[in-house]
């Protein structure tokens, strides 16, 4: 009896959490198609006007382009560096390894505002603030831990004798990386690329500090909000959300997260 109550309680609670998280997004989605200038009930007619207005605004288009221009290279570089860090952790033992791992995992634990401020003060000192490169650098720092964590998870499943077998079959360390370790991690590498791209595409606080006049989409959204309450916010928000969620879902699908994290029998 009691376990039944707990189970239903748990389900209700989960449902409640999802509602709280999703409600603003759903509201934003609904109002993005509503012709009323103000987000209020009852709803008026259905319209795509806000989308048209948004995506004909050259500032938005420019920001969108810039967002992708930053997010994709960020995804690529974070994945490469994340793989290097995860592989170092897997293969080698060295002095200060724990410290190294801690340092690698640090960025997401730092409040975004502090991170943004720190990045701004450092990058401006080396004359790199206020341009696309500064966003790129900051986003790599923020995304890298996600890539490393994902790839590390996959490497942990790898039978250590797999790489030894490659050496044993005359593959030197570079070849064994190229022909054994990377193919083994292929799915998680792709997933890491998608996730880090999504992180960069979404990131606001740090980009706001370091971007200067080179706005990314989330920064543009804030600028919209500061000017006036425009229903275009809803349209742009819906697009940003859809893009990010698409990347994450894709990443989950290729990496098999959610199916099972246990090594398959085939890995034996």
């Amino acid at each position: 009896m009691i376990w039944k109550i707990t189970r239903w309680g748990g389900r209700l609670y989960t449902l409640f959490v999802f509602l709280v998280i999703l409600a603003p997004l759903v509201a934003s989605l609904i109002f993005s198609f509503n012709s009323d200038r103000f987000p209020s009930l009852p709803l008026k007619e259905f319209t795509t006007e806000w989308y048209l207005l948004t995506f004909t605004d050259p500032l938005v288009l420019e920001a969108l382009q810039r967002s992708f221009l930053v997010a994709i290279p960020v995804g690529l570089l974070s994945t490469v560096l994340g793989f290097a860090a995860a592989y170092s952790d897997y293969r080698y033992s060295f002095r200060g390894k724990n410290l190294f791992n801690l340092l690698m995992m640090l960025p997401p634990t730092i409040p975004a505002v502090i991170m943004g401020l720190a990045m701004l003060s450092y990058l401006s000192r080396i004359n790199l603030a206020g341009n696309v490169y500064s966003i790129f650098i900051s986003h790599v720092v923020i995304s890298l831990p996600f890539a490393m964590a994902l790839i590390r998870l996959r490497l942990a499943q790898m039978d250590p004798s797999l790489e030894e077998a490659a050496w044993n079959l005359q593959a030197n360390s570079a070849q064994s990386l190229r022909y054994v370790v990377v193919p083994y991690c292929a799915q998680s590498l792709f997933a890491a690329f998608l996730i880090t791209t999504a992180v960069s595409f979404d990131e606001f606080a740090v980009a706001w500090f370091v971007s200067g006049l080179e706005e990314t989409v989330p920064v543009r959204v804030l600028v919209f909000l500061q000017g006036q309450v425009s229903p275009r916010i809803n349209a742009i928000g819906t697009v940003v959300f859809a893009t990010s969620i698409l990347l994450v879902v894709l990443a989950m699908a290729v990496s098999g997260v959610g199916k099972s994290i246990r090594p398959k029998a085939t890995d034996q």
Partner: protein
Amino acid sequence: MENILIEVDRVTKRFGDYTAVTQTSLSIERGEFLAIMGSSGCGKTTLLRMLAGLEEPSTGEIRLDGVLQNGLPAWERELPLVWQSLALFPFLSVLDNVAFGLKMRGVPKAQRHAQTWVWLKKLELEEFAHRNVAQLSGGQRQRVALARALVTEPKVLLLDEPLSALDAHLSVRMQALLRSLQRELGITFIYVTHSQSEAFSMADRVVVMSRGKVEQVGAPKDIYRHPANRFVAEFIGNVNIFKGRIEGLSNGVATLQTSLGRMTASIGDVSARLGAESDFFVNADQILLNTADYPGNSIKAKLLSYKFVGNMVTLYLEREGGEELKVTLPEPAYDSAGLKIGDLICASWPTVSAHLFPESH
């Protein structure tokens, strides 16, 4: 020496404070099937990994064909290994798994494939060539691992307990395959196992290891008949060990005083001293039941239990002092003896079947 392929020369391997292999020397001949046997942690796998270059000896030398191997990275040695876990590449097809070694050597694609197909055929894997290794049965995966290691036509194949994951039936079939493959290729197989039956059924020579040291090297029959010491005898398992004090030495026969009375044992090439405490052993299949032929070496004992293994029966007898005596005999002999549990039996053996151990140090 012409015929020596691999020389392990006073090799020691330490991991921190732990010494896995201690001052081990071993000469491995061209074309022989050598089994290295011992319980887990005896250093047999470490020794094999040092041969493959996956571990570096702390001291001592390893030579292949007279060429020093110390310091060579694994990929510059030609000592392919078959792993206990097989370590097949899960993201490659059977064909690509087998071709891997050739690809790493830069063999051109056409030649690579031709050579790979030869081995796929030899190990009856052609129909699986384009399958993923995950889709294969245990025995098929085993053959892929063998083909992958042999495709580069090495002089030596190292095997690390490759059959331990298979069921008994399949294991016996794979043993026959390995033995015939080794004869056909004429290359050296070095086979590490904890299983006496695998080692004894396949190997030309067996190395028994314990706690990082070689206890005995010899043909399976020699090890079985003449275990060099108490450890090997107990590991082989099919012997009865007695304790005694030497009271007389003459004509290659020692007379010993034991808790069960006076007994005799052949000395062999062991150096024995009068008055020394000494162990001796009798193989379980050398003991005769209820015959009055060997009055010097006979024991009265009660039949406790028995066990059938193949067509042999092992009887467990309880001696007067409560100690156990093991006797094996062929099933027909057991049937005709008409024994029942609880019967008092006279077990006896000739002096030539009892052997002194060298004094333990």
